[in-house]
């Protein structure tokens, strides 16, 4: 199954009944899939909106009405959605946003990239908020994380982003789609008309500064709960590693190949990897723990270096951080990456011997 189709089917299985989108490459296969698939779902709503702005606001409307709603786009389109993602965070409404990242800035190109890390993990729009960001590394994970995204969005009443790239969206891999949920969570805040209950109001405008501050701290407490409970990462050959690669998504797949290659060529090479699965919350604790033993970290991103900032923040200058970045939609081969890794690895070893 295509990565984008896996996302679509997992969304349907998770109970998503509303999809709103706007064409942009490289994610068009997802709205196309949803257009035909939602026609078979009772109460299914598919709208190709007039813009990214309209589509995310339709998501807001469907979400406040109680439906599981989703939109998808690629980098420039996600920029357009940011205003309402901020509203969703402020109004505490669940929503799932898929970003199939392409090279930027500006129109950039349509090749796979990881240059939206800052935008995704720093909130992206205006105001004090965070968005949960899931970074799948395979078609199977595209499905699993889309399924999970709907649960997280409802559990914490917050927008959740699934961030892939053109590569993950376009490749075909075997996939087990998660099974359909029997019962979706009850929602006591949704608008259905005030029949037999007092009217409800969902808003983000809070003119009183003290009240706004309280709301901001309330959101922070929620984000702390999410950080405690939902941080996800995967370790690879971490035992006895003396250099640890940090990479996510497509970059992590390439890095895995590079590490295997290097270890095959030279048994003395002990490179491991940590792959953040949630980009926000970032697996800071895991890095700190690894950092107590390992002094060299090698960050690889398909950008000029964005996640590397979070690695630096986590390790607080206690370890040496190497960086290799390939922006612009360039996808290096494992062999290319292995060369860079080996160079950094041997240089560090030499330095330490001195």
């Amino acid at each position, binding site marked *: 199954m295509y990565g984008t189709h896996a996302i679509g089917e997992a969304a349907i299985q998770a109970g998503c009944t509303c999809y709103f989108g706007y064409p942009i490459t490289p994610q068009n296969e997802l709205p196309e899939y949803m257009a035909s698939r939602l026609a078979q779902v009772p109460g299914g709503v598919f*709208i190709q909106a*007039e813009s990214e702005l309209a589509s995310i606001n339709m998501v*807001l*409307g469907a979400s406040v009405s109680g439906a599981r709603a989703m939109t998808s786009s690629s980098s420039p389109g996600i920029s357009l959605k940011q205003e309402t993602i901020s*509203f969703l965070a402020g109004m505490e409404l669940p929503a799932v946003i898929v970003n199939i990242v392409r090279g930027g800035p500006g129109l950039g190109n349509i090749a796979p990239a990881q240059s939206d890390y800052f935008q995704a993990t720093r909130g992206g729009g205006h105001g004090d908020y965070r968005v949960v960001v899931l970074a799948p590394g395979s078609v199977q994970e595209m499905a699993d994380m889309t399924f999970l995204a709907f649960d997280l969005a409802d559990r914490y009443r917050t927008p959740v982003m699934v961030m892939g790239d053109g590569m993950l969206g376009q490749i075909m891999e075997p996939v087990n789609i998660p099974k359909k949920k029997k019962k979706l969570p009850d929602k006591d805040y949704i608008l259905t008309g005030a029949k037999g209950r007092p009217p409800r109001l969902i*808003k983000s405008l809070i003119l009183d500064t003290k009240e706004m501050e309280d709301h901001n701290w309330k959101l922070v407490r929620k984000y702390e709960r999410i950080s405690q409970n939902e941080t996800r990462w995967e370790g690879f050959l971490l035992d006895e590693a003396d250099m640890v690669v940090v990479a996510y998504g497509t970059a992590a797949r390439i890095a895995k190949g590079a590490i295997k290659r290097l270890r095959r060529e030279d048994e003395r090479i002990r490179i491991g990897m940590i792959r953040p699965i949630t980009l926000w919350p970032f697996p800071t604790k895991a890095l700190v723990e690894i950092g107590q033993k390992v002094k060299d970290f090698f960050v690889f991103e398909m950008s000029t270096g964005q996640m590397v900032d979070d690695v630096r923040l986590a390790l607080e200058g206690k370890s040496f951080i190497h960086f290799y970045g390939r922006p612009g939609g360039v996808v290096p081969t494992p062999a290319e990456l292995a060369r860079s890794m080996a160079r950094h690895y041997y240089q560090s070893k030499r330095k330490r011997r001195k």
Partner: protein
Amino acid sequence: MKKVYTRPKSLRKVPMHYCPGCGHSIIHRIIAELLDEMKLSDKAICVPPAGCAVLAYYYLDIDMVEAPHGRATAVATGIKRVQIKNLVFSYQGDGDLAAIGTAEALHAANRGERITVIFVNNAVYGMTGGQMAPTTLVGQKTTTSPAGRDAKKEGPPIKVCELLSGLNNTTYLERVAVNSPANIRKTKKAIKKAFEYQQKKTGFTLVEILSPCPTNWRMDPVRSCKWIDEVMAKEFPLGVIKETKC
């Protein structure tokens, strides 16, 4: 004693923040009366705009959700597609609907979304202090058109009803005003009709209401009401612009 006039149940008992002579309070009351009379208050979901009327949710005692500036029709689309049996209406100003939200309004109308738009046209941006709006009249002075609107530079005012009337899926478009008791009664009738059409699921409905903004027009309330008749209604003719009977 027989009660002949009372506060509608759907209108909360709180003082309104609107300026003296502002049309919003009248329009709120009309909507509240209709929700009571048509027994729709427990079915209604309203999407107020960014602007003075954002605080409508403190006055109308029904389910409400805020929308980002200009996006009310998109939000209302999302709601109505899920809650198909509810009465869904947006309440938008001229800047909200005819400038920043033109695309959303036009396309919701073209899709024939079964929603009603209460479009309040007061020819200025009210909340931000009286800047030029897409509906500002030619020659009208505002804080951002100090020499008066120049049709050659800023274009003539946009007539929303006429613009939307060419779209097949708009079923009911009427322009009314709230500057006199007679016009207020007509406004109530128009909104009632729009709500009825929505319930018949015919298509997109919009009521444009010319409404006084004495504060930003730099006029007293009485002159403001006269100005609507003498100047505004000449540019924006009152009456049914489109009605597709079914």
